[in-house]
């Protein structure tokens, strides 16, 4: 065999080994791909296709292409539901920010023992299913329920307020379920905040309020944004809260989809509603990522500073 031929053989054997290795790793990740295709991508495509089909007279779907499902969404009744959902999501998120930001921020700044206490106040209720906890709110809010009895006992009201099945009660439920997500997002950001930055701002002449506005708030904004996404997006779809606490009076997109699917059996329309909701949340996530990418870049700078500090301290054996 000539030298050339030997080289060629060597080369091809190396290539073969390389191919074999690739094939093995492909085989290893295959189950994940199969799972994703079967249970995520597949149903998604099915749902999109379904949304362009026609509802059959009695039961099921007919394979006739139509845009009516989407047109239907923009009819006054259904479009109103979308608007109402967005409004409720907006109000709930606002309330969650107002309550959750200070809580999460304080939790990060306080002493470790208080930190534990504040954390467990959020964690312990989580051990009980949120559906069951929501039924607890019924006991509180229903006519002649705990709240009514309390208010009448101290003489603030004379007759039951009939709070259950009202809009504010749904907001309370939303806030109750979603608050921990905000608290932990803000906590995560505030905990990483290098306190020497706030001291620097005070040192340079900023009052506590100005220091908060110019330093603390911008640096905890990534956590706040994460909290907003984690609150706003679910709050459009959490139909069971509106169901349990809102009766039939508050109808959200989530309720509409459930109703169309389970009661009316208009699958194509339910699919079209889902597609629109999905697009809406995708847009929100896209906006969040655009904003958060910039913020994250800056956040990294802060951490770098902090790490260096730690390194130095350890180096000097303090």
């Amino acid at each position, binding site marked *: 065999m000539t030298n050339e031929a030997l080289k060629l053989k060597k080369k091809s054997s190396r290539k073969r080994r390389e191919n074999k290795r690739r094939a093995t790793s492909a085989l290893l990740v295959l189950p994940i791909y199969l799972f994703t295709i079967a249970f995520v991508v597949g149903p998604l495509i099915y749902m999109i296709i379904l949304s362009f089909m026609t509802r059959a007279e009695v039961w099921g779907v007919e394979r006739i292409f139509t845009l009516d499902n989407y047109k239907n969404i923009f009819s006054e009744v259904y479009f109103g539901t979308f608007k109402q959902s967005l409004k409720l999501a907006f109000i709930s998120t606002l309330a969650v920010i107002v309550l959750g930001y200070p809580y999460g921020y304080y939790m990060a700044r306080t002493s470790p023992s208080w930190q534990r206490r504040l954390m467990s106040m959020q964690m312990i209720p989580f051990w009980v299913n949120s559906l069951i906890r929501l039924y607890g709110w019924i006991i509180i809010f229903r006519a002649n329920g705990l709240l009514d009895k309390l208010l009448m006992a101290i003489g603030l009201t004379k007759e039951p307020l009939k709070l259950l099945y009202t809009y504010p009660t749904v907001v309370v439920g939303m806030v109750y379920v979603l608050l921990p997500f905000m608290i932990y997002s803000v906590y995560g950001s505030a905990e990483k905040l*290098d306190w020497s*930055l706030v*001291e620097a*701002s005070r*040192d340079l*002449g900023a009052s506590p309020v100005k220091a908060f506005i110019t330093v603390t708030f911008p640096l905890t904004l990534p956590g706040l944004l994460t909290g907003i996404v984690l609150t706003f997006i679910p709050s459009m779809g959490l139909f069971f809260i509106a169901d349990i606490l809102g009766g039939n009076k508050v109808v959200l997109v989530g309720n509409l989809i459930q109703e169309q699917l389970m009661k009316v059996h208009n699958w194509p329309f339910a699919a079209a509603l889902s597609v629109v909701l999905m697009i809406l949340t995708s847009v929100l996530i896209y906006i969040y990522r655009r904003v958060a990418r910039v913020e994250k870049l800056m956040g990294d700078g802060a951490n*770098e*500073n902090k790490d260096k500090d730690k390194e130095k301290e350890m180096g000097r054996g303090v």
Partner: protein
Amino acid sequence: MRRTRDGNLEDIILSLRNLKKSFGDTQVLRGINLDVKKGEFVTLLGPSGCGKTTVLRIIAGLLDADEGQVILEGKDVTEAPPEKRNVNTVFQSYALFPHMNVGANVGYALRIRGEKKAKIKEEVARVLSLVQLEGYERRMPHELSGGQRQRVAIARAVIAEPKVLLLDEPLGALDLQLRRQMQIELKKLQRTLGITFIYITHDQEEALNMSNRIAVMRGGVFEQIGTPAEVYDTPRTSYVARFVGEANIICGKVVSASDGFVTLSAAGGVVTARDGGIDFSAGDDVTISVRRENIQIIDEPQDAVLRATVKEKSFVGGLLRINLELDDGVEIIATRCGIDSPHVPGDVVYVKFSPEHAVAVREQP
């Protein structure tokens, strides 16, 4: 021998009166007194954990003292919040705002004060050129090297023209070469700006190189406050002698004392040293300090020498270092130029130093 205040009272810009501070059960500051004159460069020198950063934070208003007063330009600012004091800090970690570019960082103090945009821009450019960072306004802190961040931190702290600039080990994170260069630049900057600097370091070379006065700190008190020459040549305590001059400490009993000199018997010999302003009478315990470079090694016994055994030789930092053990077991170190000496470990030699080069110090626990 407390250093008396010279100059007028108006010249004193900052006074610390009997500052005390405890964290839990640990007393960190145990009565800190210091007068700083206008335009002075004062260094607080001490090992980590001696409380020097605590002093700085109390001056800045970031920490409240348990007792004592901080007087700035004749006004008691002990209770004033940090933003109400005309004092700025260069933090050890620089603490640059990561979400602002260099220009916004440097201009922060003026922006908070509500200055006009054009003026801020002008001032930022001026201060950045002072620290040799012209045109860096738009860079983000994370894009800068350690040395550049340090300059930005200094620029940010001096832009508002504070009465006193506090620097907390600002060169600690830089490598040796850059540190030496920055020492010179900082000194130059201080002269240009005419601002009073209070500088913290644990590096005695840095302190000796840059300061007008050094306050050597240990365990929450100042052991000695004086010019670099005073602290180096006439340390008041054995601790100062060791920490600042890396000096040898020899203990003995006074034989006689007169005319500013004290003669003592120590380690089987009799030597003489300056009395360092302490009154001695025969029989007293005495501790003297002799710096390494002032120790001579001779082979034959003479008057006023101490016998010693060579223990070890090493070549460190361009100097030959000879470790010796005196007859009483105390180890001393001598340094000399050159790479080697004729002595080998185990040799019995004699140690000599001129009385001028030795000084009696107080032994403090």
